[in-house]
């Protein structure tokens, strides 16, 4: 019991140890101030999106360019929320693989449906494929960079397995 209580002492360092894969390259969680900064960034991006809507309404921008910009901004906001707020960036790589991998595959599936019904122009394939490819490459590069400094998945798995006896399930 004494052992249990000592292992359960709620200290920030213990909570940090319990956290699976505290981000490759990230040591600890972002501060509240950083989250506020991220929220401000998201609000700014939303304002830009709304601005683009009115710019298009004024016919000051080509519709194709406007759609591309809006989709890119939405993708960026999606990535920011998923990476930072949902802690995907700091969590175990497995979560990232399941979510991003599934999302990309689902995206291709729905792009196929939309193209089959003629709901999107053919060049959309290029945009989506390009964006997906860029995301995958960036993720791979980032993982490679931080893998080199913090060890590979096996280390993570073993580390988690050993240390998450306390945290696991």
């Amino acid at each position, binding site marked *: *019991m004494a052992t*249990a*209580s000592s*292992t*359960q002492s*709620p200290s*920030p360092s213990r*909570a940090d140890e319990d956290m*699976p894969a505290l981000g490759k390259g990230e040591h600890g*969680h972002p501060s*509240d101030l950083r*989250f506020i900064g*991220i*929220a401000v960034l*998201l*609000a700014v991006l*939303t304002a830009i*999106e*709304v601005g683009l*809507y009115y710019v*298009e309404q004024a016919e000051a921008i080509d*519709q194709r360019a*406007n*759609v591309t910009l*809006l*989709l890119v*901004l*939405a993708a960026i*906001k*999606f990535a920011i*929320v*998923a990476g*930072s*707020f*949902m*802690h995907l960036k700091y969590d*175990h790589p*497995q*979560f990232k693989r*399941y*979510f991003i991998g*599934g999302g990309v595959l*689902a995206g291709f*599936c*729905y792009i196929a*449906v*939309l193209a089959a*019904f003629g*709901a*999107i122009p053919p060049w959309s394939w290029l945009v989506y494929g390009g964006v997906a490819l860029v995301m995958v490459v960036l993720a791979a590069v980032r993982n490679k960079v931080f893998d080199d400094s913090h060890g590979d998945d096996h280390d*993570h*798995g073993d580390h*988690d*397995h050993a240390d*998450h*006896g*306390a*945290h*696991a*399930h």
Partner: protein
Amino acid sequence: MSVAAPITEPLGSHGEHGGDHGAHTTATGVSNEKLAMWVFLGSECLLFGALIATYLVYKGRSLEGPYPEDVFDIPFTSLSSFVLLMSSLTMVLAVTATRRGDHRRSRIWLITTALLGAVFIGGQIYEFTVFYKEGLKLSTNLFGSTFYVLTGFHGAHVSVGIIMLLSAAFMSWRGRITQRNWESVEIVGLYWHFVDVIWIVIFTVIYLIK
């Protein structure tokens, strides 16, 4: 005194078991509950992907109005979007507060998140009633059907999220959420952030792209 864990534990409170006996390690090395939530969110991606794709397939094919440009109030919806965005911020602040052990602040942020979510739902209900008065019903045209189903499903998810938030706040108030099982709040947070992320896509694809 409270070290010995009861047999039935709230979600996520697995610290004691694993720490004492090492008997509840997972095959994947990650929390089962968290993994389950991520897999569930993956399935929700498919659901909303299907609804959004359906909207896009039928976009611009309604034979009669009202059409999107006739009913959409972009400034109002932008405000709703901002409210939901801020609720994501308060949610993540609740998670970090729980993680720090600051349960009072965590409850404040959880309730604030729920309130912001309720404001968003109120905005959606107002928007729906305005659209209805302007003649856009579920069966009016393809736009009405796809729009109401998509945003209605999203609204239902937000409502469920509000219930989860209030439940988490209540559990925290009853002392059932501790720094050992703070992951429960994080899991609720994952669901809430996902709901926000889906709205990001809906707002852009449905409202902003003509």
